[in-house]
């Protein structure tokens, strides 16, 4: 049982991740809808894994990943709907892996398992 922080501003995407976690894993999911909120949550409840959307209202996912890892170090999965950012970018040193939208639940669960191993 691990704590996972998902930073995402789009409510249906939050719902989907909640559903994936409830249906297919026994991890605990905390949600943040902005970089600011994520920092506050990390302060009170340090997670074992970050899942961060690349496109956030107040910051971009990579910058947030760097900042959160300084606050509390944990692997980062970067979620993006920009296929090219996912397919063609070399894996950034800060990032454990990319997840491309539309998310495939089984692939998400498997990647989370790898990241937490």
């Amino acid at each position, binding site marked *: 049982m691990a704590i996972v922080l998902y930073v995402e501003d*789009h409510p*249906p*995407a939050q*719902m*989907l991740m909640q*559903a*994936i976690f409830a*249906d*297919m894993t026994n991890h605990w999911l905390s949600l943040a809808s902005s970089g600011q909120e994520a920092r506050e949550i990390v302060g009170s409840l340090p997670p074992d894994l970050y899942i961060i959307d690349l*496109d956030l209202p107040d910051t971009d996912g990579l910058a947030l990943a760097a900042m959160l890892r300084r606050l509390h170090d944990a692997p980062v999965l970067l979620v993006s*709907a*920009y*296929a*090219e950012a996912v*397919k*063609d970018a*070399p894996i950034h040193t800060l990032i454990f892996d990319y997840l491309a*939208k*539309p*998310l*495939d*639940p*089984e692939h998400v669960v498997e990647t989370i398992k790898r990241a937490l191993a």
Partner: protein
Amino acid sequence: MWSKLLSAPWPDKSDVPEAVRQEATRRLHKYWRAQIWPFVVGVLALWLIVQAQNIPRARAYLLPVILMSVVYGLGLLQRYELFWLISTVVLFAAQGMLIQGLGAVTAVSFLLPYTFAGMILTHRKRVLVQACCVVAFWTSLFYELPVNSVRLDPPHYLTVCYDILMAAFTFQALRFLNQLSIELNTAYVEKEVTQQVTERSQQFLARVSHELRTPLNSVLGFAKLMRRVELPSPQGGYLNQIVEEGEQLNHIVSDLLDSAQLSVGKLMLKPGTCDVNVICQAVAEEIHSILKPGVSLSTSLSSDLIPIQADGLRVRQIVRNLVGNAAKYTTQGHIEISTTRQDATIRVSVQDTGPGIPEDQRDLVFVPFVKRDHRSPGVGLGLDIARQLARLHGGDIHLQSEVGQGSTFTMELPEKQSAISNQRSAVSS
């Protein structure tokens, strides 16, 4: 003071893009080599006349001829452009000073090295040459005012001849410069505009794909989650349909993005080691589910294939597009995926027993958005993307077809990595 002055940053607009500057240099040298000989002949002729007419202090007229030959010789060598330009200035100045009453005409001629320098030199070199030109310009203009002891006294006809020669040369060169600057400006502006349009359309496509994928994320994600539960017969089928069509939509969005990136040469390959046989096998299994009833699929994979240097994901995309295309159009019969290796080239052939493609339409199948059958699914990008990706790898795709018999698409990929890097640099330049 001097060292401080020289090491400080020199004034330079440096707004000429490097490519434009190089093109200007090339064209200027070409012009110099092609057009300077009439001027040389003219100066030589003047000098001969001076010698023949027994004009006093005739030897002094030798200086321009010597300078001329040096300048001409250096003008043939691209490397000495700075020296070449400065000696042009000295040449013009020497001639103007030797021949009385030509200050104004000589002054105008300094416009040439001044403009040349602005086009082909940068930073302090440019400032140096242009400063020489400005000094020479004013010296020439005011030359006639003060009393000068070394001034020669050439006969009138010589002055007129020199006048004509200088004016003709200056006029001709200015005309060339005018044409050159118009052409370079046009090319530069065109490039800027194309670049802006390309960037805009890139941003637009990235935005569109983002907007399309965001709702698709929920649709597909929730549908796949629901599919984990065993649903009663009709609803389970509906759900499968939603997932399949959603995946199809996602493929179309990806294809549009790939096509856009390929068309502007922005798609970068990630070469690694990949086994083409494994890829073909995987694609065959993937495609099995979308075959029409009455169509069978088999593979005939050569055992002497070696792993090649290529972008595995992209090679898989090529094979999937080819096989997917065959599966789409074949309603009866058989599809075969075969691999062969010959002359350091790997060939993947996809042979079908579909309707075949008439000869006049064979090039059209690779044209983006052109589809032979408007009712078939997809937007008509698959083969275009496949061929562009194959070419990016240094290979190609060929088509053989017989109407009523079927079609064979053959992808060729070089085994060596070098072909990929060459191709990539060719695309990026």
